[in-house]
């Protein structure tokens, strides 16, 4: 016996193209199946989620959070446990299927995007060492105004192997970041900025979420991605603690775990799904733009959510300080 249907549920998730895609694929399906309106909000914001749960003023039914944030959210008790009877996570690879409160829906990378026309005769950058090499690749660059990913990039640029990153040597990373700082013309803060900066020729290369470059790549619009050292992680959703519509939130998670829908979503925005079966439904032409494609997977590095959950706060503060120092 189902609980009564509310008029609507609210899903908080990333904004931009993914929001449009999520609506078209998941929300539309949900509304069709259950006749409950899905209202979207965004962007992802752990702080707000926490304030909501702590004040009991719950606006969201389910919310997306980044990988390392999922661990903090779980510790802070911001999510309801996942109801395995509704959301069948058994097919997911380990350790995703062991998660208690969040569903890993997709995979995404923070990768190196660049303008092809900024480099002569096919001499494109391939990894973060190239990003740091301002002699060979002169021009303005952009990085995110956060420590996460940037520390890894700096270490890789300094020669650390992709599988030897953790625990991060923070001091070394900052020293390396010092080198590139004068060449960063914009420290981006929202997801669409990197692509936009490239399109507007504000920068020649930048870090950015791969989905944001995906369409540009497919459109052959002169923007491409170097997969070397792309920091890869999972995007997760959970049912917000205390929401009156928890049941329907679980139902939404179930849909998000659906391989067919994941495939449609991946094809549309470039973020591959987590359900192994979703691969079967994806157009093969799209595959090479995914971080998990056979040719990209060996080049990428995986973010340690545990390390960031543990050290993130301190490191982010140090990064802010570093960023503002003159």
């Amino acid at each position, binding site marked *: 016996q189902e609980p009564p249907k509310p008029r609507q549920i609210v899903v908080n998730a990333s904004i931009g193209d993914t929001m449009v895609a999520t609506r078209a694929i998941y929300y539309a399906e949900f509304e069709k199946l259950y006749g409950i309106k899905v209202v979207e909000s965004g962007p992802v*914001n752990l*702080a*707000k989620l*926490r*304030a909501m749960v702590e004040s009991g003023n719950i606006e969201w039914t389910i919310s997306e959070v980044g990988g390392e944030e999922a661990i903090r959210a779980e510790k802070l008790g911001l999510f309801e446990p996942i109801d395995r009877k509704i959301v069948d996570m058994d097919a997911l690879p380990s350790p995703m299927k062991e998660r208690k409160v969040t569903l890993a829906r997709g995979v995404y990378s923070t990768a190196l995007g660049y303008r092809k026309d900024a480099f002569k005769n096919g001499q494109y950058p391939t990894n973060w060492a190239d990003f740091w090499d301002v002699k060979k690749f002169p021009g*303005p660059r952009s990085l995110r*105004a956060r420590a996460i990913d940037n520390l890894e990039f700096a270490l890789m640029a300094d020669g650390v192997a992709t599988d030897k990153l953790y625990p991060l040597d923070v001091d070394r990373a900052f020293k390396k970041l010092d080198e590139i700082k004068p060449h960063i*013309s*914009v*420290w*981006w*803060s929202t997801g669409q900025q990197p692509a936009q900066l490239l399109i*507007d*020729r*504000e*920068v020649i290369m930048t870090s950015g979420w791969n989905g944001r470059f995906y369409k540009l790549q497919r459109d052959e619009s002169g923007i491409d991605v170097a997969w070397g050292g792309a920091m890869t992680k999972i995007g997760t959703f959970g049912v917000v603690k205390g929401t009156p519509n928890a049941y329907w939130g679980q139902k939404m998670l179930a849909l998000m775990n659906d391989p067919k829908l994941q495939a449609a979503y991946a094809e549309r925005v470039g973020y591959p799904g987590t359900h192994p079966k979703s691969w079967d439904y994806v157009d093969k032409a799209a595959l090479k733009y995914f971080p998990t494609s056979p040719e990209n997977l060996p080049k990428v590095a995986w973010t340690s959510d545990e390390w960031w959950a543990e050290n993130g*706060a301190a490191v982010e503060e140090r990064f*802010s*300080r570093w*960023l*503002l*120092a*003159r």
Partner: protein
Amino acid sequence: MAGGALAALAARVPSGPFVLGLPALLFLLVIFVGPVLRLLLLSIEGGSLGAYEKALTDGLYLQVFRDTFEIAAIVTVFCALLGYPVAFYLTTLSRTGSALGFACILIPLLTSVLVRTYAWMVILGRNGIVNRTLMDWGMTDRPLALLHNLPSVIIGMTHVLLPMFILPVYSVMVRVDRELLRAADGLGASGWQVFTRVYLPLTWPGVLAGATLVFIISLGFYITPALLGGGRIMMIANVIEHQVQSLLDWRFAGALSMVLLVATLAVQAISNRVQARRG
């Protein structure tokens, strides 16, 4: 007896106008003063002044405060340099002329800050109009970095605040008694002497009022640095927003807010004092 006392009391209770002000007063107390005071309490929760210690001793935040004041000062100076002559020019115009002039000032003033900031992004961008033009004219072969830096933030803020400087200065200027200028003229003063000895001192209160307004509003600016600063120009409001939205550190955000508020009120108070002293 009690009735008489009551009547006497009723006669003493401020009536009429005071009562009409009550709803707004209560409204502001609940939705403005109360929350701000609560924020103050929040920032000293548990009787600890730790948040303030951090705000006032930590090099990072001191730097932000310094930057904020510096930017506000620069913007104020620019507004004064650009605005004073224009305000004066407005006072010399005919009816139609000044109507057009005012349109030039009011339209931007009333247009969304977002729209104006967006427009500067379009103009100053690497691929924007200025760079295009410079490159077309061969004055530079590589686009200049005009956006996402201190100058672009200052340009954007000056654009937003210039009308707020011009209006109070203008309002003082039009109230200057022309007779005084004529008197100075008749008493033998040269044009320059009339300006420095009479006009400038007489319009100084307007300059002070306009500058105070611009400076105070500058201190609390958020949008322009957020959009034009490229993540590198942090003003105190941006830090406060970050504390709340990303770090959820209400205590610290509250402390920063209180410091900002006190700074704002202090600037206002100093300005009032200076103005009062001039009589």
